[in-house]
């Protein structure tokens, strides 16, 4: 049997009889507020707090109202952004370079990744997060296309003698690798034939998966998709404890993964275009300004290991030449 309720506000106005489904709809959409008394028969009235199921409904709604207000604010923000150039949206000088744009974009867009929301967040807020995320991604893509159009091509990266074949980083799982000296030079045909002057395709937009990249697949696996450019390739070398020479990588990101979590990492290289797949385990995590996770590779093919090392070497040369 469906229960009916009558609600009364502080002015004595009455609404009822209404079932729980109607009430839930009204409350969640903010149509009814300030209810002071509740009745189950239209005659005997009780303070709201004494009718547990209705009281809880309003308490839950209060949180959702805040979330709906935040969703409205974000949409207003998008409308405001539409009238501004990308540099202004990202808080930059008008002539800021591409990498400065990218860094500012990452800082800004991080705030709006839907994964930052609690699991029970209102669907409208989740949608608003996606809207602003995609808006910012489209803005970044446009800024990138504009900047690249105005840039002259840079000279191709210098190619050195082939490198002796390095050993696999970690095979099998758990094996501790000796630190090794990075090989000098050593790039493959990919680098020789790679287009120069740009680090990524201007026509390709950023997507959540490309940027933050952590996804839980349907079968429960954690997959991290990481876009790699010459600018951010320091992820392989910059961390003292988790770096390529020690068989791992440090990924700067706000999400946290428990130590020991198995992760499949897919690196997407733009120049030269190549995809490197590795398996690893979270062995390090840090918060604060240097928030991120350290992953130790547990499976990486010899060819991919060689490619990663060559890429790091090429990057250091490219940075020196700038």
């Amino acid at each position: 049997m469906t229960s009916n309720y009558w609600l009364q506000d502080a002015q004595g106005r009455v609404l009822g009889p209404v079932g729980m489904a109607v009430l839930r709809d009204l409350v969640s959409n903010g149509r009814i507020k300030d209810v002071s008394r509740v009745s189950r028969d239209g005659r005997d009235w009780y303070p709201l707090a004494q009718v547990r199921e209705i009281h809880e409904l309003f308490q839950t709604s209060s949180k959702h109202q805040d979330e709906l207000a935040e969703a409205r604010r974000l949409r207003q923000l998008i409308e405001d952004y539409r009238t501004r150039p990308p540099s202004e949206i990202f808080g930059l000088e008008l002539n800021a370079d591409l990498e400065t744009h990218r860094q500012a974009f990452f800082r800004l867009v991080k705030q709006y990744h839907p994964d930052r929301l609690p699991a029970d967040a209102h669907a409208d807020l989740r949608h608003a997060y996606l809207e602003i995320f995609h808006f910012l991604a489209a803005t970044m893509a446009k800024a990138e296309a504009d900047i690249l159009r105005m840039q002259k091509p840079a000279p191709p990266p210098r190619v050195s003698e082939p490198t002796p074949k390095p050993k696999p980083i970690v095979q099998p799982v758990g094996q501790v690798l000796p630190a090794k000296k990075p090989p000098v030079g050593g790039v493959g045909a990919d680098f020789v034939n790679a287009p120069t002057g740009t680090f990524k395709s201007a026509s390709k937009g950023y997507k959540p998966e490309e940027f933050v990249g952590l996804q839980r697949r349907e079968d429960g696996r954690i997959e991290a998709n990481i876009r790699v450019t010459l600018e951010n390739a320091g992820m392989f070398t910059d961390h003292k404890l988790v770096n390529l020479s020690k068989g791992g990588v440090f990924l700067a990101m706000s999400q946290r993964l428990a130590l020991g979590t198995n992760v499949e990492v897919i690196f997407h290289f733009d120049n030269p275009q190549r995809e490197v797949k590795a398996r690893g385990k979270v062995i390090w995590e840090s918060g604060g300004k240097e928030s991120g996770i350290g992953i130790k590779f547990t499976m990486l093919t010899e060819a991919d290991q060689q490619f990663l090392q060559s890429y790091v070497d090429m990057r250091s040369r490219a940075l020196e030449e700038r």
Partner: protein
Amino acid sequence: MAAPTLLLVDDDKFVRDLLRDHITSIGFECRICEAHDGTEAIEVARAEQPRLVFLDLFMPNKSGLEALPQILKVSPSSKVVVISSMDSEALVVQATADGAAAFIAKPFHPDEIAATVKRLLA
């Protein structure tokens, strides 16, 4: 033929005045009665047998949802238009199941009122 009677039911006098202004401004010849809650609406409906009732839902003493079936009981030929800020789909379904002929969400536009009057009294 006598001019039809319309009943405006809302606890807010401002809303009743607004409805009256909208209806008279379209040049529709009618007699307009008012009630400020569900209980009074039933009594006026019994006495006046209005052709059309504009009924708020959230009112003191007796809500519009309670008054709706009782108005139709004492004045079976009346057509009831619910006007409410509670424009939830579930509530529209409930009001329609209880006999409402139309549902207008607040804040309403004068054109909605005019169109509804013309449609239901045609």
